[in-house]
């Protein structure tokens, strides 16, 4: 089976790197976040001034730092996959641990951001901007938590396939953030 795939390039579903079920999940998640961000942009049309005003309450700098944290974490996860493919389990675990620690850093910064909002008395009913803000970033943060759990499970049972599947989830979290961040914080 393995030899056959080496000789002829895989086609269709088999060409997807990693696990089909993970791709189903990734596509589903992207559809959900994509729809959420599109809805945000749509509702923004109804009140551009209110949305701009609300956005001034966000801290784009810390969120920008979070972007760097997350893409770096994604890089470490990608390196873990390479280490795993070379059969170096210790190296894989170290990269996965580093990726997870950056995930925790992301959550800490996010938590500080939420604490700041809450200190300003802002909740999801303050303005529809904040409804989307809490809903989408909150959903995303939950996926960061889930991703950390998945990376922990992967480093418990390191195989090239497990690492690839776990890292794929982590990259999806990354991907969502690089779209969410500019749309919500910078536009």
């Amino acid at each position: 089976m393995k030899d056959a795939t080496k000789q002829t390039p895989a086609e269709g579903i088999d060409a997807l790197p990693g696990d089909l079920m993970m791709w189903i999940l990734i596509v589903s998640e992207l559809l959900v976040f994509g729809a959420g961000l599109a809805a945000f942009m749509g509702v923004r049309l109804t009140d551009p001034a209110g949305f701009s005003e609300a956005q001034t309450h966000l801290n784009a700098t810390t969120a920008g730092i979070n972007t760097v944290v997350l893409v770096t974490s994604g890089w470490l996860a990608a390196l873990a996959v390479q280490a795993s493919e070379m059969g170096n389990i210790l190296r894989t675990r170290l990269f996965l641990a580093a990726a997870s620690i950056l995930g925790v850093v992301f959550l800490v910064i996010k938590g500080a951001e939420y604490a700041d909002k809450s200190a300003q008395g802002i909740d999801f009913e303050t303005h529809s901007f904040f409804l989307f803000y809490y809903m989408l970033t909150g959903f995303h943060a939950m996926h960061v938590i889930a991703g950390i759990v998945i990376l922990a499970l992967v480093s418990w049972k390191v195989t090239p396939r497990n690492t690839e599947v776990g890292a794929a989830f982590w990259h999806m979290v990354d991907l969502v953030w690089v779209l969410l961040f500019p749309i919500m914080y910078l536009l």
Partner: protein
Amino acid sequence: MSVTNAWLTLIALSIGSTILAHFGAAGIFASLAILTLAWIKAQVILRVYLGLQNAPSWGRGFGMVLAIYMIGIMGLAVAAS
């Protein structure tokens, strides 16, 4: 592209968009520039981190849907300005 090059690209693009947003650039052209940077970043993550560069047909499919989506978002950004 190697994963390390991808990472460096992503960092550079992120810094770029933060600088754009931070130092005065406002208005619709800044928005479109920021969205373009995000588009490239998403493309890099899909192709390199998620490995779609090794599955060209899937890479094209995802790239196409992403393109339609980003153009839609840009359209909404223009409409709001």
